[in-house]
């Protein structure tokens, strides 16, 4: 039998025959006109098949045309010029050049300067270290070393890890380093007085979050993914296909069972709402099997009871608390009400445990007795009288408390500075004593002071060495460290004669 003709197709699709009207039908006025109105995008053969009843969608099958060529450069040529620019991110005054459009402002800021963001570098004092940062795994020296590296390499952790070579320290993984660094930073942020508001503090804290265990697990998992053998991969694929197949058959089974129940018991409603186990995809194959088994046994013979239970679960818990807080905030503010979470385990409080009514100002925060006088002094200097407020409202009391905390921290820091300064003085005195003894000795053996020419040479030699010479010397030179290096090197040579310059002479010889 020959292929189906156009007429056959038309009759199958029950379309009227446009070209050959039946004897009872009026003749169409003009076939040619209709053909001419063939919509764009439909092939002639198809049109002759389906005729004018072509779906409107077909009109959209317009033959794709090439896009018009973009018109480059016709709107006048852009001139570029080679010129110097100012980079605001540079600390030095170095001027670099680049190509820029001639029209632009030559003094405008370098647009990429804003991306030069310095990460906050954290520094801690010995006092803070002993109070907060002690760790059995880490010494202070190694922590210092780590922080120095992190600062130097701009928190590029892989580089830090690569360059990490602490002498006398154990082998550190990248996670160890990161964990130590972020733990220290978090502790510092948490324990130091914070100038900004709470939100910015918690934001910073969350940016310093690091979960070592999780990170290690994550990396191990990725590594295990990478190191799968082809057999394992194939097995995984096979398992996946199997899983899909099982799911499909389960669904089919369910549908058939529903139909059966419907026809047998005449239950029309409810059953179709039984949730299909869509989550099966996410879980592994053994799990699915278990669920399948569960379906066999747990599928209720009385489906009506299943429906409400599933409904209850899907409805979820109502959340009255949230709505209430939003609504009652204004009410609470109006009535000066402040709510706190009641711990659920509260036993019925007796009279003794009830906090009696009080005046807010009586519960103003107080600084610790040991530092109270100094805190008061610090606050007095900036015009705040602690212990008294004009408007002791709740918010202001909280404010005062954080101010007191900050002031206490300041007093503590000053105290430690005093102590360290005292230690420095003691050490300097001891050093000075020793030096003067040493100087007397060298004078005893006696060598002439260097000639002026020597001084010049010594000075010219190397600033670095000159300083090292100074540093082994008396308390006087330590004090003069603040002066410029040049003057120091001179003073080191011409004031105290022998020891240092003699050594240098020998080196030159």
């Amino acid at each position: 039998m020959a292929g189906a003709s156009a007429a056959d197709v038309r009759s199958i699709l029950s379309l009227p025959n446009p070209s050959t009207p039946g004897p009872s039908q009026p003749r169409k006025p003009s076939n040619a006109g209709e053909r001419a109105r063939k919509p764009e995008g439909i092939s002639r053969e198809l049109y002759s098949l389906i005729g004018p009843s072509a779906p409107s969608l077909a009109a959209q099958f317009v033959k794709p045309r090439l896009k018009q060529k973009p018109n480059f450069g016709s709107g006048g040529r852009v001139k570029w010029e080679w010129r110097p620019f100012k980079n605001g991110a540079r600390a030095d005054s170095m001027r670099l050049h680049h190509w820029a459009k001639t029209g632009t402002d030559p003094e405008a800021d370098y647009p990429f300067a804003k991306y030069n963001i310095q990460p906050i570098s954290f520094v801690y004092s010995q006092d803070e270290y002993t109070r907060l940062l002690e760790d059995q795994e880490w010494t202070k020296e190694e922590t210092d070393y780590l922080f120095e590296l992190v600062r130097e390499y701009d928190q590029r952790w892989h580089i830090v890890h690569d360059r990490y070579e602490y002498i006398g320290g154990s082998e550190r993984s990248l996670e160890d380093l990161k964990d130590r660094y972020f733990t220290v930073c978090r502790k510092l942020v948490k324990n130091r007085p914070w100038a900004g508001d709470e939100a910015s503090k918690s934001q910073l804290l969350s940016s310093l979050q690091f979960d070592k265990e999780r990170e290690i697990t994550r990396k191990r998992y990725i590594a295990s993914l990478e190191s799968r053998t082809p057999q394992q991969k194939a097995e995984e694929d096979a398992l996946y296909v199997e899983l899909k197949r099982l799911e499909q058959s389960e669904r089919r089974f369910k549908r058939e069972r529903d139909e059966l129940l419907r026809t047998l018991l005449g239950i029309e409603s409810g059953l179709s709402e039984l949730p299909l186990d869509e989550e099966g995809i996410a879980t592994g194959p053994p799990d699915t099997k278990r669920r399948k088994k569960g379906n066999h046994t747990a599928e209720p013979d009385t489906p009506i009871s299943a429906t409400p239970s599933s409904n209850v679960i899907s409805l979820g818990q109502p959340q009255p608390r949230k709505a209430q807080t939003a609504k009652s905030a204004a009410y609470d503010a109006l009535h000066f009400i402040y709510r706190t979470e009641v711990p659920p385990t509260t036993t019925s409080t007796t009279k003794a445990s009830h906090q009696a009514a009080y005046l807010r100002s009586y519960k103003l925060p107080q600084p610790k007795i040991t530092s109270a006088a100094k805190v008061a002094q610090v606050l007095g200097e900036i015009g705040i009288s602690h212990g008294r407020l004009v408007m002791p409202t709740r918010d202001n009391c909280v404010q005062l408390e954080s101010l007191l905390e900050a002031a206490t921290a300041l007093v503590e820091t000053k105290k430690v500075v005093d102590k360290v300064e005292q230690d420095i003085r003691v050490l300097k005195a001891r050093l000075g004593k020793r030096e003067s003894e040493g100087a007397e000795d060298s004078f005893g053996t006696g060598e002439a002071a260097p000639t002026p020419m020597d001084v010049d040479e010594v000075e010219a030699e190397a600033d670095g060495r000159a300083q090292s010479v100074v540093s082994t010397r008396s308390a006087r030179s330590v004090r003069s460290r603040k002066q410029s290096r040049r003057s120091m090197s001179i003073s080191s040579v011409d004031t105290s004669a022998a020891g240092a310059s003699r050594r240098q002479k020998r080196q030159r010889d």
Partner: protein
Amino acid sequence: MAANERVRVRGLTISRPIIYGNTAIVLTPKEREALSSPDHTHRWTVAVRSAASAPDSDIVGGADDLSYFIKRVTFKLHDTYPNPTRNVDKPPFEVSETGWGEFEIQIRITFVAESGEKAFFTYHHLKLHPWTVVGSTEPDIPPIEAAMKMGPVHSWQYDEIVFNDPFQSFLNILTAHPPTPLPKHTRRPVPFHTANPASLEASKGGVPEFTQQMEREEAERLETARKKVVAETDSWRQKLIEKEKELEKLKKQLEATA
């Protein structure tokens, strides 16, 4: 329902803003003559009032009647006054007297029975003489003629009475009387307070009034102070770290020379 009334509402703290303090005015010679004790120079009124001022009133605070939760206020005056313990059982909770000297007044506030709260004390230093800038060369007590020109002296402390876990019945009473909110912005002079000496100028020229702006400004004052302190702490910490490095160096030197 009645049983529920005596249940404490846990986790809830409700407070009521009050002010306490005094207003003092210098007596004219004529008034002094009329007094039984002619050495008295001032007439003063000590009071406990609600914090917000009634519009167009010539007293500080007192917009609300506080008797819904305060049953009695006892002012204990100086012993030289006749009958020095004055109980005031109904509003206005205030005592007016004449005198020549400043002294400490003990104020005892007793709450209504529904509150189940004990009475508590607070103190107010009776202020008769005009406020002066601390540490200025002016005498603490200006001559009486000058003081007369400066008008009434106001000395008021804002405070909030805080009730923890109030009884339901008491809470109902309190919420039935929401306190008049303080005006958002300063319209009248600011009540002077020694904790904010800078407000001296703003406190002159009429009956002062407590406002929310004062509260905000105090919060800002504390905030700036805190920022200052934190900045200073940072610089001191920097210093400390430098010093520690120096100390470290010195220690090494000492070891090297030893």
